[in-house]
């Protein structure tokens, strides 16, 4: 225990300040009502859905949770079920084999819900595009509020995308 405490003390706090929201990432104007916005109650919960990525974006979502980016320090947390989630973070081109699972996850997420598509594939279908096996971008399958480009987008860009999606709430 002494060694662990010593290491924690030596490491210090490495968390960096979060980025500003970026309006250019917004793809759909959200009509959020006051009652709806209040329901987030100072904490946002996210359900990540990998709909067919190469797993590069997953690495950066993990990185967004590391001590440098410290997503949880902002009151944003990943949850195990879409039923507990305010936001879906969707990666990958949507493979046709994941189309139904993604739609069901979307349906299982309670209103009001936000959807952030992560990565070039999520934004446009990326290198995989549309084919017999790929539905292409996420918005071809479910409504998307904010799309974050990058291959993969940096943790900072992912954070920015999340903050952009919830910015209206912050203004109240």
């Amino acid at each position, binding site marked *: 225990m002494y*060694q*662990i405490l010593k*290491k*924690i003390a030596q*490491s210090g706090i*490495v968390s960096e300040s979060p980025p500003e929201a970026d309006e250019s990432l917004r793809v759909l104007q959200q009509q959020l009502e006051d009652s709806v916005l209040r329901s987030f109650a100072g904490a946002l919960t996210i359900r*990540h*859905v*990998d*709909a*067919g*990525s*190469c*797993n*590069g*974006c*997953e*690495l*950066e*979502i*993990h*990185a967004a*949770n*590391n*001590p*440098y980016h410290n997503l949880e320090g902002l009151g944003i947390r*990943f949850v*195990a*079920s*879409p039923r507990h989630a305010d936001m879906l973070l969707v990666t*990958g*081109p949507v*493979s*046709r*084999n*994941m*189309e*139904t*699972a993604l739609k069901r*996850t979307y349906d299982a997420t309670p209103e009001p819900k936000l959807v952030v598509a992560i990565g070039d594939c999520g934004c446009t279908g990326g*290198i*995989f*595009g549309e*084919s*017999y*096996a*790929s539905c292409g971008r996420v918005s071809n399958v479910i409504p998307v509020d904010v799309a974050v480009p990058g*291959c*993969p987008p*940096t943790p900072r860009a992912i954070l920015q995308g999340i903050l952009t999606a919830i910015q209206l709430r912050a203004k109240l």
Partner: protein
Amino acid sequence: MQIEDFPVELSPVPGAMPVWRGGVDAAQWRSLAEQVRGKGGRLVALWASEIVGRHAFEVHMALTVRSGLVWLTLPVSAQRPEFPGIADVFPAANRMQRAAFDLLGVRAEGGDARQWLRHGAWAEHEFPLRKGFDVKAMHQASAEHYPFVAVRGDGVHEIPVGPVHAGTIEPGHFRFSIVGERVLRLEERLGYKHKGVEKLFESMSIVDAARLAGRVSGDSTVAYGWAYCMAAEGAAFATPPERAQWLRALLLERERIANHLGDLGFLGNDAGLAFGLAQFSRLMEDVLRLNHTVFGHRYLMDAIVPGGVARDIDSAGAQAMRAEIGALRTAIRSLRVIYDEHPGLQDRFIGAGRVAPDLADRLGLCGLAGRASGMSWDLRTQFPPTPYDSLDVRMATHRNGDVAARVTVRFDEILESLDLCWVILDRLPHSEIRGSLPLPAEGSVGLGWVEGWRGEVLVALEAGPGGSLARVHPHDPSWQNWPLLEHAVIGNIVPDFPLINKSFNLSYSGVDL
């Protein structure tokens, strides 16, 4: 088994690795598989292709022998597209054979005939990798019944998990049959991420396709990038400049370090030590940031290009990497002491998810997980390409085959990779970093074979006319290792599954293609 013992004519495949290729008939196909197995050889990959211009097929297997890799090809007629199955000889062949049927309609005789990659996104009688398949046509999706093996008995029940999992991980379905908390059987159902990668290769030029190869499994982008370029360069009879080969090894070791750091953090976290995740993910982030500074990409995507590497390092970059190596060595050693001496952690690690060496051998466990179960196999020591032939890599192995062993192998491998990076930086030769890639002749083949952080990545390539690609098959070590996870969890409790799964950390994207 040695090359001279083969009763068929074998010719060397040009390229960086010792690979021989030959055609076989149906009887030889099986008997050679049995003979190689009998002499301790392994199946690295099995795939099928359509012979361009003729309505006929081929099925391929890559087997290890004492002096390298043997790539055997069996012609299959279009009238009766069947070949003798080898899943009884090499159990790992089961899913590869089923994938070959789903994509090309070439069926293995005998054994498991259930679909694997086809979930209903295309019809049973359609085969995407056939040349006549209409890529643009959207086929009506339908939910297809998949017959899981049912376990019956008093108190046995099933837990279906996925495809959408509870954590930030890739999608797949796990069907647990359990009594109380104990796992009687786990059956995996993958293929959810199938996005037509192999078909897509056939529409790309040999140079552009390197980008796609780097996105077969994003966490192994360097291993795939190198394997693909090795195959393309072999087919074109090109050798990259020496400095590029050394830089590729530097990139591959940095990828290994970053992934092992991430895994060690999550393994601590899954056993209840969040401190471990915080510490190791901090170190991983440091490595990623330096990757970005020196190579322009956090995960080193597109750093390896056909003919060489995209970017050279300067003395400032080398200096920063040297400083990082020193800092990482100290940090990892101190964290290793904490992990080793933490009773709660060791209690969860030791004995969990055990794959005994004889089982690992029988089922063909490979890569990092294989080395933790006594399979002493590492391409960097067995058939070292430049620069590994002069680096004298110390292979990390363990015989316990449990989560603790896979943790130990990761620690040993990071420290070894740090040493290798140091030596590479010291001895980096001076030359160009990118040579030209002549267009390979139509029909020429190449094979890339690289020891990625997870295990051996193989890319087989056949060139088409004018710099196009007739067929590319990328093979992930996860094909071999996924079935072993099913065995590793037997008798363990369900709550230990995430920990055991993480200790293998297999790729979904790499096998779903």
